């Protein structure tokens, strides 16, 4: 028995001493949080990670938020969900989940926390570069919070990364005005102060985006004077112009070659997979879930509007099912002259987040709001004539209402399928006026928006609600 005990003790001793090391396993195809954030390459990789999150934000949501609820699209029966088009959103509908935006916010917060640490570790990195990286994170974070404001209203405010399970993960929603005043606008002002004006790449959130976003926010808050101020700062950069008529299509298929795009999202299906939007608007291997609305179809297909170069370059007029939007695809015709669409897992779509035409028409809108009709008309005509149309004469748009309608129409045709239309209707307070008659045609006993404008906002997704008991659903959704 003594021998037994000796051996046992020996075995246990060997076991215990070697074990702590033996049981310490590192991830092999991932990196431990504690081992990251050492070099500039780490920052570059994290920046790419943040933008990659923007791809997920846009993938399918871009049109749900900005187009599906407007008069741009309708349900492609059997393939889509009619609820988007009849103001029947529910807490389980696609697009109601704000997680992708918060994922990007989390990555931006991570950068804002750790980039200064890398700076301390690597004093050799050009401080201008460090500041530019920080400005990108501020810009992207502000953009995401502004999307939250537009789609859901109040939203929880996270400015630091959740990187320890000791932190309280539950936060209630912060009111819209606090988000704007205490986070979004300060973020953009910080970005302006940190940015490097020489950085102009269209794929990155540079100074152009800062000004465009500030202008958009001012317009959203009906601060026309403020909007004009930010517009002037943007034009003072002398970076952006209206793209010529001949190369209008490049705005969507080659943004980096244009003088108009301010921020576009890069896409390469070989590394990113197919863009989800293709299954909604047109892919070669599946039916679209969206159908082009009669409003758009009838305008572009009318013989009188044949000279509007946007029609044939935006929608596929040859497809009888009205379910193919070709705006984002380069021309690729088969033998009989029909457009060939990429399979949904092979589609590249460069989402145009902001372009100068957008800012130009917003400036026109601001001028009209301030009853400066000549300025509004001049700016509107820039876009109108670029489309190949005859300029509006100053005798036709003589009051603010007709001017406003003309600007909104111009925006609808120009920014069709660019996530703009619904927010244009909201900003101008015409959602019910435009949509309710249409919704009643689509579904006779549907409620529409009516006087109760609460359904302009989206419901919070049930997944999101369940995960955080401090969240309160947007009324009247359940």
């Amino acid at each position: 028995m003594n021998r037994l005990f000796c051996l046992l003790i020996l075995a246990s001793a060997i076991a215990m001493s070697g074990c702590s090391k033996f049981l310490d396993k590192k991830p092999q195809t991932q990196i431990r949080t504690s081992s990251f954030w050492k070099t500039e390459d780490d920052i570059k990789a994290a920046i790419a990670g943040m933008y990659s999150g923007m791809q997920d934000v846009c993938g399918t949501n871009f049109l749900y938020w900005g187009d599906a609820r407007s008069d741009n699209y309708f349900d492609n029966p059997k393939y889509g969900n009619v609820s988007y088009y009849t103001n029947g959103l529910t807490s389980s509908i696609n697009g109601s989940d704000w997680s992708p935006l918060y994922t990007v916010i989390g990555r931006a917060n991570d950068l804002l926390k750790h980039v200064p640490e890398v700076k301390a570790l690597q004093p050799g990195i050009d401080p201008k570069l460090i500041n530019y990286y920080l400005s990108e994170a501020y810009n992207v974070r502000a953009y995401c919070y502004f999307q939250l404001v537009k789609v859901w209203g109040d939203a929880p405010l996270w400015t630091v990364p959740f990187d320890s399970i000791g932190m309280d993960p539950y936060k209630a929603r912060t009111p819209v005005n606090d988000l704007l005043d205490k986070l979004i606008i300060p973020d953009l002002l910080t970005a302006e102060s940190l940015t490097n004006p020489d950085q102009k790449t269209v794929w990155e959130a540079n100074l152009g985006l800062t000004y465009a976003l500030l202008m958009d926010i001012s317009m959203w808050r009906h601060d026309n004077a403020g909007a004009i101020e930010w517009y002037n700062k943007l034009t003072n950069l002398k970076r952006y112009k209206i793209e010529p008529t001949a190369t209008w299509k490049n705005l969507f298929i080659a943004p980096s070659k244009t003088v108009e795009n301010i921020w576009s999202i890069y896409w390469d299906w070989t590394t990113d997979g197919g863009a989800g939007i293709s299954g909604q608007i047109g892919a070669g291997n599946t039916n679209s879930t969206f159908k082009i609305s009669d409003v758009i179809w009838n305008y572009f297909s009318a013989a009188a509007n044949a000279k509007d170069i946007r029609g044939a370059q935006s929608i596929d007029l040859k497809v009888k099912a009205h379910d193919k939007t070709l705006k984002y695809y380069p021309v690729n015709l088969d033998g009989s002259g029909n457009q060939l669409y990429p399979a949904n897992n092979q589609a590249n779509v460069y989402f145009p987040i902001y372009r100068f035409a957008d800012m130009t028409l917003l400036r026109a809108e601001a001028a009209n709001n301030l009853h400066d009709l000549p300025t509004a008309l001049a700016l509107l005509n820039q876009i109108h004539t670029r489309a190949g149309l005859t300029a509006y004469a100053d005798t036709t748009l003589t009051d603010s209402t007709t001017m406003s309608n003309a600007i909104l129409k111009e925006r609808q045709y120009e920014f069709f399928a660019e996530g703009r239309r619904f927010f244009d209707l909201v900003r101008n307070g015409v959602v019910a006026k435009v949509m309710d008659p249409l919704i009643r045609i689509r579904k006779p006993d549907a409620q529409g928006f009516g006087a109760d404008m609460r359904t302009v906002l989206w419901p919070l997704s049930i997944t999101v609600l369940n995960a955080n008991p401090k969240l309160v659903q947007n009324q009247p959704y359940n």
Partner: protein
Amino acid sequence: MKKKLCHSHPGRLSPGRNRIFYLLLLLQLFTFLTNAQKTPLPPRGEPINRVGGTVLDSKGNPLPGVSVTIKSTGMGTTTDSSGKFRITVPGPQSVLVFSLVSYENKEETVGRKVKMVIALNEAANSLNDVVVIGYGTAKKRDLAGSITSISAKQLEERHPASLGDALQGMAAGVLVTTSAVPGAQPSIRIRGYSTFSSAGNNPLYVIDGVLSDNMDWVNPNDVQSVEILKDAASAAIYGSRSANGVIIVTTKRGVEGKPRINVQYLHTSGILAHKLPQANSREVRLYRQEQSNSPTAGGNTDSLNPSFNADNDYQDLLTRTALKNQVDFGISGGARNMNYFTSIRALDDQGLVVNSYAKSLLLRANIEFSPSTKFKYTSRFNFGYTTGNKIDEGNTIFQAFQRPANYAVFFPDGTLTGYISGRRNPLSVALLQVNRNQNYQGGLFNQIEYTFIPSLKFTTNAVVNYSETRTQGFLPKLLSSANPTTNAGSEGFSRTVNWQYQAFFNYNKTFGKDHAVTGLAGFSAENTQTNSATLADVNYVSEEILTLNSGTLVPSGTTTSATGNSLASLFGRASYSYKGKYILNALVRRDGSSRFGANNRWGNFVSGAVAWRFTDERFMNWSGNVLDDGKLRVSVGQTGNERIGNFDAQSKYDFGTYFYNAQSGVAPNSAVGNPNLKWESTLQSDVGLDLSFFKGRLLVVADYYVKTTSDMLYSRPLPRETGYSSVRVNVGTVQNKGFELTLTGRPLVRRDFDWLVSSNLSIERGVVKKLNGGQSFISGNSSDAGNAAWLIREGGALGDFYGWKQVGVYAYDQSNAYNDNWERLTPNFDKNGVFQGYTFKGQPYTGAVHSVYGRSTKLKGGDVEFANLTKDSVIDNADRTVLGNAQPKFYLALMNTLHYKQFTLSFTFNTQWGNKIYNNAARVLDDYGTSNIIPQPYVIHNMWRKQGDVTDVPVYRSSSVGNVRVSDRFIEDGSFIRLAYLQLNYTLPPALSRKMFAQSANCYIYGSNLLTWTNYTWYDPEFTSSDPLQLGQDGGNYPRRREIGLGINIYF
């Protein structure tokens, strides 16, 4: 007769056999070849009191490996391969005890005999059988825990393709659900679902002492015994991975004597067991008329249209007679100081669906060498290769039902069609889509046992397992839905290396006559490393060449992965038995796992058991003639689960999937790490009763258990605003209670006729006791239509289907009318069909009339009336309720073996009772969701068409009001009774087999899945569900075959 049979002539062929045997050994390069060559020389100088003989079974076949011991000395020998033994006894008064697993013991006084002929009867169950209990063995009579032991003989009758299949119905509390797919492994659940993850509910496998997650590579023919450790007191010796029971597999060893050559061949043919009704062309047209709301419409009736004038029987086109060929070859034997067992199995299984197949080749060599009584060296080597084409069930056999019967399968020139109107040609998919896999696995095990003193033995062993997998997928242009068509494919490689080391001491001593003590103390460590890569390709230049150089690489489909984990353990066990009357048993295990947080790596698992053989008490003397043995067992213990991701405790950044503008990005993993993560622990208590009546002719084993898992390894959702989606935490409690009853009996024992019957019943009741924050959640489909949904709630059970209750279909538009209390009013019409007002319970109703809305539209005639549980004007999420449960109320197996002279008939009935199935296959067809998916004929003929139709099938209507919500319309009773196996075996009389130069030979007719009684309407109610949160959804599984076959089995 028996006397006549006792003299076999085993020596006659020995030179030839030895040659084969030596050749084999040479091939395998075993170093102790020379020892083997020296063997069978009989020792010289026989003493006078030496006795020899032969041991036979009841049919006169020699029994090798029978232990022959001289009573009360412990000395003994074993019979050789021809059943012969020789032993030196102290004198004529000596008593010899003959024992062999699954045979009744026999005692015989030597007397004046020099040659003895002993016949052993098969035992229904024997208390002296040795049972493997993990790092040691014990006699069945000394067990205090709940262990079921299954012998090779029981397994052999099933002729299974995999060992898992053979365990079905063998043990109470063990639910084996087989899969119909060729080469697929069954799912095995021991005592219910104890946690929420798929892997966490699998048992641990211990194959010849080697711990494993599966037993896919074990040739069922090599198995000597299978032990199933069910309660915590038994399983806890395997600590951290034993919460769902342990299955111990012991393979065969050679028996001293001449080489024994075994050849077996089995051929089976299988047909589709259950053909389903499918809409033919005429019914497709009827449906088209309904879809387009025009009596003249009917698709393309143009007889010249080659695409649409067929009338296919797709099930006929896609299925064939499934042929299976199985060949086994083995040589085993041994000499005084060594023995060997080798085997080869080749299996070719051609599945029911064309082009689906599985082939395998399994090899094994087990060698034991003991140059002295103190030292034993064991080496085991096994190698396996499997390959198969796993056809895509959804796009073949299930697509067959979706695709209209009038679509062409072949072009006029005889070539296959691809897509027509968005529907794949299932035959093309089956024939042309490639989904091949090749798997290799090899294991080498070496062990040294050293006996210091007879009561103390030291064992140490090491094993290396190497496995490699290659998968190849390809989708040709013909099957592409893109325009222009493209082809795409992928190739994957994976390699896993695992090593294990164990060292332990066994102590075993009886003090005095009455105090038996055993002890075990040991240490083990293991490490696993897996590396894998998948590469995706498009635009293959040639569809003949499917290697990656033929196409263009797609970075987004190309991934690599590498992961590993390690475990270290200390374990010990002690037992004490007083005269076998009072048995105490305690064990402890301390496990460390790399998967847990640095603060909580180590976990302790403790268990204890007591047993009381009350029949040995004096006050039970009265029962002697009826009840010969009775034992009460009580055990309680703790077991664990560590099956989670290898690095769930750590926060980490991912890369390789976040690209932007040609820069590879990095982003935090969506699950945040939890450094405090620890073991999930399961506390199980078990009370059992073992009874043996009428000298072992009736055995009863009953167990009641309560199994509570707490601190479940649970992926807790995080608020999405954190940027993360989940964190792995220890929270939640699941409890299972169950009752198990096994009856084994020999109701008839005659000279030529013998009947053995065994049945077991298992009743399990699981309940979710505690969830994170008490919050219930929906697993599966959270929207209102489509796939099944399950409600996971405190007080509920896993498998609770959740959705809406269908009450009926409104006959008239006016039928959607309710009084203030939401009771339905009856609309009345005159003979011209003009609405005349409502009545309620036969009385005219004049009060307010309320109506129900679905998706904000008022429901009309033909719409489904759902149970309005909230009594309001809308059918919405609040009207959902639990619709039934997917787990059986009980399951039961009944096994019979009848011997008559040379014939043996054995058959097994299986049943599962009271479980519900969500028939999602039918749902996809019947929900009118896609215009080119054709519903089942019943739906086409019975759908609501006009005002006043009374039916249970809703109207075809394109704008949906939610008629096809997740509802009990597609929930069916999954109960079944099945004649699962039947075998009629004929053993050649020994005289006849000797003429074939064989020691023994038998041939048999075999059948499986011969008869099934069920009300379930899709292919088969038995199918595997991998996710415990999503049980019992049939998505159109591979059909099951009814199989009959012929086989022979010869021992030379």
